[in-house]
């Protein structure tokens, strides 16, 4: 008797869960597979399908409708659709590509369709964000005015990045491109910025390493990773940056500041080239299709700084491009250089010479970031870029002559020290007030008595001294974001005191 009752209750719950319209017969648009190969499905039928709609390929596999023609549709398979054969039936889903996002996504690793790949529980989607959303228009935007601190002295002082800017990181393989992006993510730990790291076509081993670093440093508490490894289909690699952008836009809609890193767009362009060639779209320069510029411009146009009325959030994009043998005039590098608001140019020669980060200051620019730089930094580092350029010129010239006048010699010595102070481990980001005090010492000549090879030790000891003895000055710089004359005087005294206390690394100057 009791069993019967339970069964009745069970069937009642079950029937309450089944909406009759969900199982009733509905007309469904279908198509018949003409051919399938290399991940591209050609389908007859599907007359009313929309562009970039998801197609149900059966066996729980999906495809993306990319080519809509009069008598056939070109679909790229997302994942493995090996069960397909000529004559198989595929169906419309009436779903345009989107990812389900909620606050739970922070700290997770997802694939370009928003499915978790880190083994944890699925994400309870709060909102479906379109992969291909239109970039915000002109009126809701505002000019870039708030700095995004990378924690890297060379960048924050000379190539400042603002929130809402797009700054390209470009350089040959293994010149530290990813390191700069990761260092920037690490430095956002107290900046109230959500980070999205999009990995495109990378080895699983490198991504695992990246995740481990971020986990160890506690950066996963505010970071989302979108992963499309080298082993997944070209279609998924092509979608990854748009998925990352969609996730970033979810946080933007909540008025948050977001930093998004695309690592890297060269592989993204190559994945798109693969798809386009397989779909038999006409190819152009370097066999890329005609719309490869639009591919990246529509992505990077979605980086934005919104005004107060629209939530005031921002998306800062750091795309990465890998060059071959320093060739920045190849097709994809020139495209992305022209789209972004500046570039950080890394050079293998500098890297090998021990200059890390290997930033070529002369060729790197930031077109909008200087208006976002804090005043204190502008005060101390204002002429640094020009000085370094002059130093390099002088250095090249000095190679030819042995006897130099004292003034030139002094200039060279100073330049070498300013150069040396820009060296920094990628996982040792500095707060802006720390950077200001260090750069102040270098450009004002307080380092002239320090041997170049001792500068690393000097910096560590000096920062420790500043934190123990002049902490209130540091907080004052961080708070007021500018240097008054008194603060400058106090800072100068602090450096002098420090140098006097440490004669082993700094021989005191006759001022």
């Amino acid at each position: 008797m009791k069993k019967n009752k339970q069964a009745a209750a069970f069937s009642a719950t079950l029937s309450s869960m089944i909406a009759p319209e969900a199982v009733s017969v509905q007309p469904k648009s279908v198509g018949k597979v003409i051919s399938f190969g290399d991940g591209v499905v050609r389908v007859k039928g599907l007359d009313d399908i929309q562009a970039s709609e998801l197609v149900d390929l059966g066996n729980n596999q999906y495809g993306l409708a990319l080519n809509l023609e009069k008598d056939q549709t070109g679909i790229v398979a997302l994942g493995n659709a090996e069960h397909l054969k000529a004559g198989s039936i595929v169906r419309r889903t009436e779903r345009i590509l989107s990812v389900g996002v909620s606050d739970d996504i922070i700290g997770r690793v997802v694939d370009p369709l928003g499915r978790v790949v880190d083994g944890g529980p699925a994400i309870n989607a709060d909102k479906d964000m379109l992969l291909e959303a239109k970039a915000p228009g002109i009126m809701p935007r505002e000019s870039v005015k708030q700095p995004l601190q990378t924690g890297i002295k060379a960048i924050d002082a000379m190539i400042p990045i603002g929130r809402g800017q797009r700054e390209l990181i470009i350089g040959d393989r293994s010149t530290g491109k990813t390191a700069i992006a990761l260092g920037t993510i690490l430095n956002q730990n107290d900046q109230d910025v959500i980070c999205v790291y999009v990995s495109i076509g990378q080895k699983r081993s490198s991504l695992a390493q990246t995740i481990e670093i971020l986990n160890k440093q506690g950066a996963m508490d505010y970071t989302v990773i979108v992963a499309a490894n080298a082993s997944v289909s070209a279609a998924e690699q092509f979608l990854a940056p748009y998925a990352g952008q969609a996730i970033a836009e979810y946080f933007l809609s909540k008025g948050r500041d977001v930093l998004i890193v695309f690592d890297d767009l060269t592989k993204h362009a190559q994945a798109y080239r693969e798809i386009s060639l397989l779909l038999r779209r006409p190819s152009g320069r370097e066999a890329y299709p005609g719309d490869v510029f639009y591919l990246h411009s529509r992505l990077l146009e979605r980086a934005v700084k919104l005004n107060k009325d629209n939530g005031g959030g921002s998306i800062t994009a750091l795309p990465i491009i890998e060059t071959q043998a320093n060739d920045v005039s190849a097709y994809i590098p020139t495209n992305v250089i022209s789209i972004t608001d500046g570039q950080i140019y890394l050079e293998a020669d500098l890297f090998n010479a021990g200059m890390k980060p290997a930033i070529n200051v002369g060729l790197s620019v930031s077109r909008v970031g200087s208006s976002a730089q804090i005043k204190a930094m502008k005060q101390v580092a204002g002429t640094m870029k020009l000085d370094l350029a002059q130093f390099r010129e002088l250095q090249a010239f000095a190679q030819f002559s042995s006897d130099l006048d004292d003034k030139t010699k002094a200039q060279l010595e100073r330049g070498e020290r300013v150069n040396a102070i820009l060296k920094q481990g990628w996982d040792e980001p500095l707060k802006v007030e720390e950077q200001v005090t260090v750069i102040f010492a270098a450009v004002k000549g307080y380092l002239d008595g320090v041997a170049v090879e001792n500068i690393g030790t000097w910096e560590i000891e000096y920062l420790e001294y500043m934190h123990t003895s002049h902490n209130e000055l540091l907080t004052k710089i961080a708070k007021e974001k500018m240097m008054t004359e008194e603060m400058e005087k106090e800072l100068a005294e602090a450096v002098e005191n420090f140098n006097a206390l440490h004669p082993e690394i700094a021989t005191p100057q006759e001022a």
Partner: protein
Amino acid sequence: MKTIHATVTSAVKLSDKQLKKISETIKAKHTGAKLELETVVDPAVIGGIKLTIDAVEFDATVRGKLDRLHDHLLQQF
């Protein structure tokens, strides 16, 4: 004259009377068009019929209903 291509899939072979009824129903919806009717017997559909008219499918088979039920229930967890 426009030709429409229709496929009827069923678990068992349909009688001529049943097929006539089906083709008449289709013709009534698409007046003035020539109808090419193809029949497929597929025991995997278990029961009922599936009608594919050009690129539109009406799936009233037991298999199709079970699949939809499966997806529908899975969505709720």
